[in-house]
C-alpha cells in the first residue's frame, strides 16, 4: 500500500492524477479541519465564516477528486478517494492537516494556504487541461473571498492587543516550517508544468513570498527564518495529526461500508 506519489511520475496521466489528487486532498483535509470549529468559534460570525470556508473547500475537493478518479480510470469516485484511503495514500500539503490550535493558529494556517491557492488556481485557470482550468477559475473566485477574510483577521490580530499579537506571532512561528513544502517542486509538478497543464512553481513562490511579506508587515508581525522541512505530505509522509483526522472523517464509511443518505 504505497503512496501514489512515491512512484516516479510515470506517464502524463499518472502524473496529472497525482497532481489533481494533491490539490483535492489539500482542500478536503483543510475543509475537514475547519469543520471542527463548528459550534466552537470565538463568535457566531466567525463560526459561520469558518463553516462557509469549509463548505467551499469541500466543494472544491469534490470537483478535484471526482476528476482525479476519472483520470485514474480505475473506478474510484470522489467518495472512494475521500473515505477509503489510509493516511500514507493521502497527498495533501502537510500544513493543511495541522491542528486548529487557537483562533490565531487557524487564521494563520488559512491565510498561508489561501495565499498559496491564489497563485496555484490563477496559474491553473490558464491550464491546457480545460476541465482543470474550469475548476480552478471557479475556485479562484472563492479563494479571493477566503483570502480577504483570513488576511483581514491576520492584520486585526497581529496589529491588535499585546495578547493577540503574541499569539499570532507564535502561530506564524510554529506553522512557518511547513511552508517550505508549498512551492517545493518535484517530478510530478515538473511533469505537469512542462506539459502546460499546471503553473511553474518558482514564479508563483516569489509572488506568494511578496504577498505574505506585505501582509506580515501590515500585521506588525515578523517573518521567521527559513526552516528545514522534515515532512512531505505531498509524498504521503505525514505528521501524526492526519491519521486522527481521517479516523473521524472516515469512521462512518469504514464501519458501515457503502452507507448512503
Amino acid at each position: 500500500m504505497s503512496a501514489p506519489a512515491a512512484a516516479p511520475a510515470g506517464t502524463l496521466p499518472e502524473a496529472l492524477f497525482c497532481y489533481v489528487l494533491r490539490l483535492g486532498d489539500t482542500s478536503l483535509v483543510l475543509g475537514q479541519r475547519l469543520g471542527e470549529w463548528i459550534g466552537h468559534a470565538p463568535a457566531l460570525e466567525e463560526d459561520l465564516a469558518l463553516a462557509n470556508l469549509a463548505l467551499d473547500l469541500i466543494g472544491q475537493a469534490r470537483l478535484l477528486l471526482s476528476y482525479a478518479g476519472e483520470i485514474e480510470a480505475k473506478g474510484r469516485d470522489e467518495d472512494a478517494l475521500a473515505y477509503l484511503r489510509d493516511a500514507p495514500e493521502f497527498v495533501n500539503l502537510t500544513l493543511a492537516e495541522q491542528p486548529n490550535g487557537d483562533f490565531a493558529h487557524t487564521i494563520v494556517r488559512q491565510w498561508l494556504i489561501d495565499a498559496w491557492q491564489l497563485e496555484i488556481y490563477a496559474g491553473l485557470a490558464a491550464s491546457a487541461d480545460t476541465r482543470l482550468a474550469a475548476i480552478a477559475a471557479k475556485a479562484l473566485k472563492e479563494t479571493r473571498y477566503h483570502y480577504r477574510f483570513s488576511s483581514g483577521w491576520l492584520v486585526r490580530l497581529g496589529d491588535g492587543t499585546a495578547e493577540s499579537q503574541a499569539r499570532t506571532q507564535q502561530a506564524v512561528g510554529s506553522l512557518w516550517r511547513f511552508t517550505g513544502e508549498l512551492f517545493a517542486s518535484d517530478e510530478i509538478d515538473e511533469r505537469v508544468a512542462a506539459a502546460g497543464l499546471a503553473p511553474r512553481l518558482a514564479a508563483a513562490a516569489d509572488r506568494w513570498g511578496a504577498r505574505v511579506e506585505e501582509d506580515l508587515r501590515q500585521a506588525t508581525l515578523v517573518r521567521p527564518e527559513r526552516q528545514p522541512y522534515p515532512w512531505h505530505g505531498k509524498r504521503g509522509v505525514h505528521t501524526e495529526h492526519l491519521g486522527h483526522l481521517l479516523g473521524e472523517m472516515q469512521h462512518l464509511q469504514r464501519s458501515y461500508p457503502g452507507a448512503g443518505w
Partner: protein
Amino acid sequence: MSAAAPSAEAGGGVRTAAEQGVWDLLSGVPDPEIPVLSIVDLGIVRYVRSGPDRRLHIGITPTYSGCPATEAIRAATRAALDAAGYREACLEEVLSPPWTSDWVTPAGRAKLAAFGIAPPPSAADAGRRASAPVGCPRCGSLATERISEFGSTPCKAHYRCNSCHEPFDHFKCI
C-alpha cells in the same frame, strides 16, 4: 467582461417554441434556499438548446463549489422537466465560465430586495462594487455596516443598518 457574453447566450438569441417552453418551465423552479428566486432569476441556467441529437440540452452552473443547494436544484429541475414531459432532455453541469452574481437578473434583484435581502450591484456597477455602499432593504438607508463577510448560506453576507437598526443579509458579490 466574461459576464456579458454568457448572459447574452442565456437571455438572447432566437428561441424555438420548445426551448422557450423549457425557459418558462425553469422560471418556476425555485432556489431551495431563497425560494423567492427562480433558478432563471439566479442566472444559473446557462443555455437551453436543441442538440444535433434532436434532444434539448440544458446547462446549469453551480453558484459556489460547495453549495448544498446544487444537488437539490438538479433534482428539482429534473423532476420539473420529467413532469412536463421533457424526459429526453439532457441536464448538463457547466463549470466554465464560473457563475458570477452579475448574472442575477434585474427581476431577481428586485425580488431579493422585496424579500429583505440586499441584492448585489448590477453588472454595470460591478467595477466599483468593492466600494459601493450597500443599501438597507428595509429603509433604503446607505448608512449600513458589514458584520460578517459570511452568512447563513454560501451566497450571503451579514450586514446591519445604522438608521433603522435592523440586521439584514446581502447577496455576496463574486
